């Protein structure tokens, strides 16, 4: 950035005049004034008596509605953790960590337990009762990792027998039609959200189908997983990151 430089032509034109020397009386006045100022400065401090603060007058009054509000509860983090263990094959915490850790999809539980809202009684850290972005990011990331692992386990060649699949308990079809997708999507929807997709908002299945198609299309020939498998992993991830999954 350029700075404006003062210009000689814009300098104020001040006439040089000679100032008369101060008189002795003026000097005396100045000395006395200074002494008086010094005396005042060195004197005892002025004591200000304490007084209780008076409340500020209200500008206006507003009624506060204290009636109970029905808001969705946050799933306790312990339940959330247990749900993850259940959804992804009844694994123990350290097994989940080991399974999700490959390919840098996840690191270690201990890095995240506080972010998930768990209390730490030893350190007197309280339980978090409201979600926060860090918490959602952690669970979302973990869910994404485990969804990919579940696709690998359930659908990727060689396919696991239907009764042993942990998440994708259906037979996938290539490039499913809307009806074929809806039938399979319902399996995931019921698993994660606990109710049939037909009871969800009307466009939910269609939107997830669009997501499936979009992801599958973008991953043609790019991934160790087939495009459809990648599509199902994306649908799984989107469901596990759905607000209804973590609220109840």
């Amino acid at each position: 950035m350029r700075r404006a430089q003062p210009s000689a032509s814009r300098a104020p034109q001040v006439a040089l005049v000679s100032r008369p020397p101060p008189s002795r009386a003026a000097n005396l006045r100045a000395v006395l004034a200074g002494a008086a100022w010094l005396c005042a400065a060195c004197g005892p401090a002025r004591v200000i008596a304490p007084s209780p603060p008076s409340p500020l007058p209200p500008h206006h009054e507003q009624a506060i509605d204290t009636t109970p509000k029905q808001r969705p509860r946050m799933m306790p983090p312990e339940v959330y953790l247990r749900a993850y263990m259940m959804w992804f094959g009844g694994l123990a915490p350290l097994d989940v960590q080991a399974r999700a850790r490959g390919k840098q999809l996840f690191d270690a539980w201990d890095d995240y337990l506080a972010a998930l809202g768990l209390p730490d009684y030893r350190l007197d850290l309280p339980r978090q009762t409201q979600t926060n972005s860090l918490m959602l990011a952690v669970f979302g990331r973990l869910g994404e990792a485990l969804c990919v692992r579940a696709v690998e386990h359930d659908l990727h060649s060689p396919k696991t027998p239907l009764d042993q699949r942990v998440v994708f308990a259906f037979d996938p079809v290539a490039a499913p039609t809307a009806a074929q997708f809806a039938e399979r999507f319902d399996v995931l929807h019921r698993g994660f959200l606990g109710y049939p997709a037909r009871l969800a908002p009307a466009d939910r299945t269609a939107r997830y189908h669009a997501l499936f198609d979009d992801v599958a299309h973008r991953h043609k020939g790019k991934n160790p997983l087939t495009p459809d498998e990648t599509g199902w992993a994306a649908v799984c991830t989107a469901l596990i990151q759905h607000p209804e999954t973590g609220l109840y």
Partner: protein
Amino acid sequence: MRWPLLFLVMLAAAPDTRAERALPDYRYFRALSIDLLGRPPTRDELAAFEQPGFDFDAWISTHLGGTGYAERLRRVYMDLLRLEVGPSFQFVPNPLVLRRQEVRGPDGPIYVYYRRGQRRVNPSTDGELCLTEDDTGQEFPNNAAPIGIAHEVSQAVLDARTVVVKPWWLYADYRGATPADRNAPDWARRFPGFQLAPGLLVEPDGKTPTTEVRVCREEAQAVETGAVYASGRTGGKKGEPPPAGRTTQPPGDSGFARANKGRAVSCLSGTGFQNSVECGCGIGLERCMPGAGFVNEPPAFLLPTHTPLGGDAPFESTPQPAGAWERLWWGEEAKHFLDKILLEDRDFRELLTSRSTVVNGPLAQFYRFFAGATCCGGAADLGYSDPTPLVEPGAIPEALVPEDTATWLPVADRGPYASGILTMPIFLTKYGSRRARAHVAYSAFLCRDFVADAVRLAPSTEPDLTKRPGCSSCHQTLEPMAAYFTRVMESDWTFLPADRFPMSHPLCSRPKGQPGACKTIYDPAFTTLRGGYASQPHAEAGPAGLAAELTGSPEFASCVAENVAQSLLGRALVPEDAAWKAELAKRFVAGGYRMRALVRAILASPRYRDANDRRQR
């Protein structure tokens, strides 16, 4: 043509095997699963829910009482009481911790286990490792690496100063004549969570499995009572260098030792450890904890860092000292005690009043052998050397071996001073001061808190906080409650019995020559036991008196209802909930203070059912 058509119409109209459920039903079922099973419903459970004839009430009854329910309710009170202690509370009493030094034996490096402060007749080793610098070529300062060049210790010296023991941490049958049940892979199944630090399982070469340990001869003694030993020494002066060959001044005789030479003293007390050369770690070293090193807190066990899903589903384990092992089980005692009350649907007031508890192997070891180790310090000079336990060691089942983490046995009666969680080590150490103990009980069980008056604080010399301006508004309530803990030492479980500790002690009332314990146990400002000034009747009633006061308060049931309802609704109760809360409290009392009836009433309420009735997204 008409009959087939009619048949098709009838077929189409036939009911689906799945009942038509609405979204709120599904959400209610999911909420119930989360709160009673601890997880969302499985596919199979959803399918069962969709069958005609599914009965919500019957389903709730079936699961109201399972482990998921108990864990859910336990969390409510664990969140309030936070009954776990971390490393900020160190538990490393010298009588309990066996540290070790590496020396050169005739066949190579070996470990020698010893206790800091162990009394020995030999003044060269009294209070230190039983091997001298002449024996080993090294000095072994506390909490630091050895100094000097090691030379071989002869077998004769080793045999004279040490013995070989098959310790409890390596043998589950250590009390037998020929222990053989050695720490093996199957221990992971038999004793889940009992994992020794790797260094305790191998010899100094890092490969040879440890099958027995060499320990100083005094530490291996097993008598329960020793004679008070007086060496005639007065102890070194501050700053004076230790005698040659020692790293510390040899211990001098305490006032207790001088006054009681030759008298019997319990080896299960810290006083016995400090004043007798005959007190050791007992059979199989069961009165001591191992440590893989010489530092203050050497690693001893691999312990889980977090167990939000319970001890059987740990999240990472790291080597931690023996003190962490004790802290872990103190916390587990409170959890299992709560679970027992909830699972058996016992009177919830027992949480505060019951003299019973449940213990496993590590807790049994603690109560039988360790609890007295912190007693009695300077109190011995006031005649207290044989501690009166808060928990009677004789009440603890002897059958539990220290490594048996999995077996939990009931203890019907811990003794006359026990009172629910209020006298458990976890509560007494988590809330170290008497006021902290009273405060948390007041908040968690009466749902009230201390809020100071908005008054100007003026300087005051008034020692009585119930009278001091600005303090009195809270302390008039707090101090008498804190007085219930007068006879339990702060940050400890040592009980101060009335026959040894009158409210005012004549030795502590004299102007000069008071024993040192007078300042720690008695309050100079009031010349009474610390904490007892506010209410001597409360001091004599003890923690059981506080339990009676809390559970007898009309606010107790209301507070339980509030705590549980708030947790299950996921929101704070507001004034509009007051009538409902009162009804819940009434039902709780009418049901004999059983938690199951209260929870059922909350789960069946529209407030719970509608708590997730949000608009669809």
